[in-house]
Every structure is written in C-alpha cells, then in structure tokens.
C-alpha cells in the first residue's frame, strides 16, 4: 500500500488581492495581501507562520480554510485540489479542515449556551443528532478540552477568556479534523492562560494526530511550539526555517529575532540599530519589500523581488544578500 504523501497541504503560487475604494466615488486601489506563496504543510507537524501587521499571515490562514477565495494559485489538501470542489464537496471537506480564531468571544453567538455552540457545527453540516447522542458529543468535546461537563449550560459571558478559547477549540474538533488552522489563538489571553492553551494544543496534537498551521506575531512562542517556521513580510514568504532553532539568514528574520525580548535581564538586546517602519501594503516597492529597512540593501534589492531559494536542509530564503 502506498504511504500517504508527506505533505497534507500543498500551496502553489497563492495570491490574494483586495480591491477597495476610498469613499463612494474615490479611486479604487488594490492591496496585495498575499503574493506568490509556495508552501508545503507536513502531516503531524506544527508549521508556524510569523510576521507583523500587514504581512498577510491571517489572509493566508483564511485562504487555506477557504474562508477567502484566492486571486491566483492553488491549494491541495490531501491530494484534492480545493479550487475544483463544488460547494457541497467543499462543505464535506471542511469537516477535516478547521479553524480556531483569535477572539473566541466573537466566534460564539452570545445567545448560545456552550452546548448549543458545540452542536452548531453539526447543524451547519445538516446533521441531526438524537438528544442522547448530542449530550454525549457535548460531554466528549468538553472532556477533550479539559472543561467540566457542568459547563454545557453556561453562556459565553459567564466564561473566562481561556475557557472561551477552549470552547473555540472544542468546536473545531467536533468532526475529528485532520488539520487545524490556528489564527493567533492566544493573542488576546494573559500569558498564564496562553501557556495553558498551548499545553492543551500540544496534548491534543499528540492524542489526535493533528496537523497544525499556527499563525502568530510572537516569534518566541513560535520557536517554542512549532516544528518549522515560515516568516512573512508584506505578503510574501521571506524565509522558512526547517527547524525552530535554525539560524535566520534573512535580515528581516534577524531583526524580528533581535526585537523579541528574552525573559532574562542577562540577555538584553542591543536594538540601537533598529530603524524604519513597515511600508503600507497599498504602496509596495518594486523590489524586496524589506529593502527600505535593510542595512544590506543595494540597487538589485530595490529593483527586483528576490526569489525564495531552498537549500538541501530545507532552509529557504528570499534574499540577495543572505546572512551566514
């Protein structure tokens, strides 16, 4: 029997352009949120996507779960081309591809009890569960995210932020998915709760054999939690670290690392060299988007976009002057 392919998800040439208009009669302008992304997501691993505002990480997440349709490119999930699927087929596939959002409060209807919220995915999928089975499902999902079963009758406003995010995760698990896209699932939580949620995600991954795409702005967290790290800047992948401790070669990744403060006063960073602002995604420069902030940039960088080149170790860098 053939082994399943190593990669659960393959992304090729993915791009997304948003058109917007300033005012009713204003000129329309387009925003390239994601450009030319090629990415393989290996089974059973945590692939981290890290970057700052406007880097396209959340757009990428929404494209992968097909909450957004790409402007160009292709996404293949377990050998199936998502672009070729009818709406009905896509709805069935969604059982295997789920998303956890940053703000669990806005993801759950405030008038729903926890039990209602956990059963909503079945409703959406047009599955009617007999009462006893529904109760068992709710109890099983609450167990899975380590919440007490008595919580089934609570409303979202009665829960803490951490409990709400556990409900968000439980909902995503309702159909025993293969693949979870986690879009900043801990960004609005206190660190003590963030650590609980990360620990839960680690346990669930081991128990259920899940594959994660983990979106975050926090390089420290991504380096702890992820097997591979994809770094994005203004819509493009600029570097892929094949393992979390790999030394960054792209000047932007280096900058990001230097800006991430370690919880250790003996490791204070020298950040006096850091300058510059992130450019607007509406007015992308012709060449490398990081060139304006980069100490190593030259004419080539400002004229041409560097291609993402992968070496034998799987380390990919899009830079004309990679660091050693």
């Amino acid at each position, binding site marked *: 029997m053939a082994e399943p392919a190593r990669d659960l998800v393959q992304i090729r040439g993915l791009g997304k352009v948003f058109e917007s208009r300033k005012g009713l009669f204003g000129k329309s302008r387009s925003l390239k949120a994601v450009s030319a992304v090629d990415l393989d997501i290996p089974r059973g691993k945590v692939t981290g996507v890290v970057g700052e505002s406007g880097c396209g990480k959340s757009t990428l997440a929404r494209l992968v779960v097909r909450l957004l349709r790409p402007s160009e490119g292709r996404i293949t999930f377990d050998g199936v081309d998502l672009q070729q699927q009818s709406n009905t087929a896509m709805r069935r596939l969604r059982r295997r591809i789920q998303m956890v959002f940053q703000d669990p409060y806005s993801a759950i209807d405030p008038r729903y009890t926890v039990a209602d919220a956990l059963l909503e995915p079945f409703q959406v999928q047009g599955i009617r569960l007999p009462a006893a089975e529904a109760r068992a499902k709710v109890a099983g999902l609450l167990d899975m995210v380590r919440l007490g079963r008595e919580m089934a009758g609570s409303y979202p406003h009665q829960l803490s932020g951490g409990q709400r995010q556990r409900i968000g995760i439980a909902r995503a698990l309702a159909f025993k998915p293969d693949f979870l896209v986690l879009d900043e699932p801990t960004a609005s939580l206190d660190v003590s709760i963030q650590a609980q949620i990360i620990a839960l995600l680690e346990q669930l991954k081991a128990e259920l054999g899940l594959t994660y795409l983990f979106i975050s702005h926090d390089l420290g967290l991504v380096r702890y939690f992820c097997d591979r790290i994809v770094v994005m800047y203004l819509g493009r992948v600029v570097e892929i670290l094949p393992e979390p401790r790999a030394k960054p070669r792209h000047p932007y990744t280096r900058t990001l690392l230097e800006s991430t403060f370690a*919880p250790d006063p003996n490791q204070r960073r020298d950040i006096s060299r850091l300058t510059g602002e992130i450019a607007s995604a509406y007015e992308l420069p012709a060449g490398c988007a990081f060139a304006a902030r980069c100490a190593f940039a030259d004419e080539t960088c400002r004229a041409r976009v560097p291609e993402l080149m992968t070496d034998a170790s799987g380390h990919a860098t899009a830079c004309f002057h990679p660091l050693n």
Partner: protein
Amino acid sequence: MALLEVRDLSIDIAGIKPLDGIGFAVDRGQILGLVGESGSGKSLTALSVMGLLPLIGGRVERGSIRFDGAELTQLSEPELRRLRGRRIAFITQNPMTSLDPVMRVGAQIDQVSRLHLGLDAKAAAARSIGLMERLRIPAAATVYHHYPQELSGGMKQRIVIAMALSADPDLIIADEPTTALDVTIQAQIIQLLVELVRDRGVALVLITHDMGVVAQACDRVVVLYAGRVAESNSVREIFASPRHPYTKALIGCIPRDGMAPGSLAGIPGSVPSVARYPAGCRFNPRCSEVLPLCPEVVPPLERMPSSGEVACHAVAAKVSHG
C-alpha cells in the same frame, strides 16, 4: 527619599476595593516595572498616582503617594493639574486616546510647552520639532504638519512620547506603551524610553504585562497579583531567583530558548474578578505551594534577608526555618 514613593495604597471605587496596600518607590534615572496580568491593578495604580481616580468614580481610601516631597493625596485638583503634564507625564497604551484626531500633531505637542512652560508659538514649534527628531521621527518638520490618522501606530506613539517630554517632566508613567505595536516597532520605542531615562534622568514607571519588556528595560520590578504586591526586587533577582510562587509560575509561562516541548504548563485557573477575590492570599486557589494558612490569612509583604520583598506564607515559613 525617592522621587516617587507610594505606600500602602488602597483605593475604593463604588464600594469595590481593587487595590490593597500597594507600595513601591522610583528614583530619577530609574525604570520601575509594574508587572501583572489583566486585573492585577496595574492601570489603576497609574490612575491613582496621576490623581485621576475621580474620573472613574474612585478615591484613595488609605495610604500615601509622595512625589518630590509633596503628598499627592492631599493636593487639590488645581494643584494636581499643575503637576500633571508638567512634572508628571502619562503615556497610554492607545495613542489615539491621547491625540486629538482633528488637530495637527505638531500643534498638539506645542500646546504642552506653551501651557506649561509659557513658550511662544515659534519657540514651541522649534522645541517640538527638536523633540520629534530626538525620537527619530524621519522628516520631523513635515510630520509636524500631519494629522494623527496619517501616521502609523509607532509614529503616533512617538508623538505621544514627544508630548509627554515637552514640559520636561521628572516622572513618566507609561501604561503598556508598546502593547498595541508590532514587535520591531515595540523594540524601537522601548529603546527610546530607556535612552530618555539614562540621558535625561527622568524616572519611569513602566506598566506592562510582558516579562520580556521587563527583562529588557527595567531596573526594579514590582509584581502585582489581584490588586496586591506579590513580590518586588531588582530585575536581576526577580528573574534569577523569583520567590513568590506566582512570580515563578509567571516566568515559567514564557517560552524561552532551550525549553523542551511540553514544558510550558501555564497557571491553572484564571485571575479572579474584583468581586470574587478569595479570602487570605488571593493567589491561593491557583498556587502549587499552598499551606492551610493561605486561604485564611492575608500574607504580609515582608522584607527578605538578602533583598526584595515577598508576600507569601510559604516563603516566610522557609525563611524562618533557615
């Protein structure tokens, strides 16, 4: 005597008592970190020092806030107003709460020095542009004429810092000044604040939930939990040998280099809301070192033989048993 000394501060907001016996001191040229999770009382402490509690219907119930020899809790509102913005500056998390959206940013910075230092329009503008350059705002003379919404978040926060510096204050209270910013911008702003303290000898109270920011910037640290001080010490001691179980657990929640997978555990439960503070030590339901005494008796903040102060029965028991 330190420039700012807060002692045994307790406040009352409509019968609720969110702060209980907060104390700390900060001197010129020093950065004090007030650290804690949401609901720890960090921002209320800032509002108390600024004398702004009446804005939210609160008042100081007990304790003292001494600034450069003056007892702030005894000052009238006009007297406080002369201090605020002039000698004590406040930087908030969201720059848009401090900026007027329909006024050019330069004019907003000018206002501060015109009001507090009595400068004329020309002198104020020159001073503002100078400050903006100091804060590494590129093309400061042009940005001076911009409106806030034309600027990025990081630039807006620099304008707010320029406003804070404009009257040459002795003390700056910065409440999560970089929380809303991207990390590369946060790093630049923190660097600027550290330089200001070193070069100008300002005292800075840096309120943050981010232990990385604390480790990078602060000299001393006060860890707050549910409206009380859990522990205070120098930044080196806090990270090298945290004593309070909450401080230890909080540091353990931050991923750091070399941490094995699965070693991030978090702290069970969540921070209690003001209305439901547990009796005794407020951390006791989440604590891994809890003693029978803890849910009954509030642990006093005790000076440790080596350095720092800790409010914990378990630590006190260990210290007294040598």
